[in-house]
């Protein structure tokens, strides 16, 4: 394996890695609140549940590159459109898990919370959301990894990041440069996976489970 490019352009790769991470984090930061609102609405408003869940299910089967193809005619290319694509695609994983998480909470627990006199807001903040959080946080991890993966693809539409490094290498037929991008994005994905798995351990439910085992 030819690591020359990686060795000689460490600063470029590092810069592109940060750019990739910042694009991905920005997308996640926008996508998450949106998905929470959508997921909560889909759970609470009965007639919305089925349409939202099936829409998300359909979107889920669309390959990311095809998904990009469908959005480019509307949004164009560049960093801004890339962000829109990432945020939209992340909804699939996020909304899915927000709904699944909220639905996984035992109804008798919610009823007890109401019975104790919590109003809907307190019920949500103190009981429903914390109990749904393991599933939601798992969804955030999947979504984040999907975002990082698609942010590689959006390198092709001039959105920067490590994809740009790889595509440049392909265009120059320079394997070492491609490899540098591959290694960096893989390292980034593995690192973020690890970070998210550690964060999962800090949900109240995970803490309680740990104490009980």
């Amino acid at each position, binding site marked *: 394996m030819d690591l020359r490019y990686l060795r000689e352009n460490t600063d470029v790769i590092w810069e592109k890695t940060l750019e990739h991470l910042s694009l991905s984090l920005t997308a996640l930061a926008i996508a998450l609140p949106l998905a929470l609102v959508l997921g909560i609405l889909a759970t609470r408003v009965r007639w919305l549940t089925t349409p939202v869940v099936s829409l998300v299910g359909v979107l889920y089967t669309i390959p990311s590159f095809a998904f990009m193809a469908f959005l480019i*005619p509307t949004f164009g290319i560049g960093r801004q459109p890339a962000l829109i694509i990432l945020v939209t695609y992340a909804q699939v994983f996020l909304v899915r898990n927000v709904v699944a998480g909220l639905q996984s909470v035992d109804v008798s627990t919610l009823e007890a919370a109401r019975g104790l006199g919590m109003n809907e807001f307190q019920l949500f903040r103190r009981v429903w959301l914390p109990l749904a959080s393991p599933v939601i946080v798992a969804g955030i991890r999947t979504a984040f990894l999907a975002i990082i*993966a698609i942010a*590689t693809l959006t390198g092709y539409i001039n959105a920067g990041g490590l994809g740009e490094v*790889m595509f440049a290498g*392909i265009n120059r037929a320079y394997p070492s440069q491609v490899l540098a991008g*591959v290694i960096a994005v893989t390292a980034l994905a593995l690192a973020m*996976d690890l970070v998210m798995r550690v964060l999962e351990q800090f949900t109240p439910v995970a803490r309680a489970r740990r104490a009980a085992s």
Partner: protein
Amino acid sequence: MDTIESVLEFYRERSDQVLELTWNHVELSLLALGFATLIFVPLGVIFSRMTRGGSGWVGAIASIRVIPSLALVFLFYPVFGFGYEPALVALTVLAGPPLILNTYAGMRQVDASILEAARGVGMNPAQVFFKVHLPLALPVIVAGMRSASVEIFASATLASFIGVKTLGQYIITGISLLDTTYLLAGGLLIVALVLGAEAILGAVERLVRPPVA
């Protein structure tokens, strides 16, 4: 609608090329699915029969999921250069996680008492395996093949970046020309292929599922 008209027009005018790219896409995907099944299902079986360490291996292979698929496709380019081989290897590796996870889980989930009963009626180890254990695990294994085929058909699109003429080619051209017709024509066919693959393997899955359970 205009766009739909133009996409249909596109399919009509270039039917030969459309068929060729579609066929390339399907051929590459099926080959990869075949190789992956031959490699990862036996591995999953072996890991499931290991008294210890099996789940560790499964976990290690499953972590391939974290790597962005574009990075995987590009990973083998420095080794093989442009063309079919790096794409085939990448797609085969990509199918590893769903296949190995499901094979392992499918084999492990079979009730020990059933296997004991099979031995009890005088089957030898090979008979127990082929007549009882494997058939009972098959639905779960086929479900793994279904997820794997979705991954493969989706990612075969990306093989166009390293010179294999799959349907991704239309999207790549569509992005360069910023041409909506190309983008939609490619995207729609890819979605159709993925849904088709999922439907067919879903049908197989129902076929191999035992009447009860």
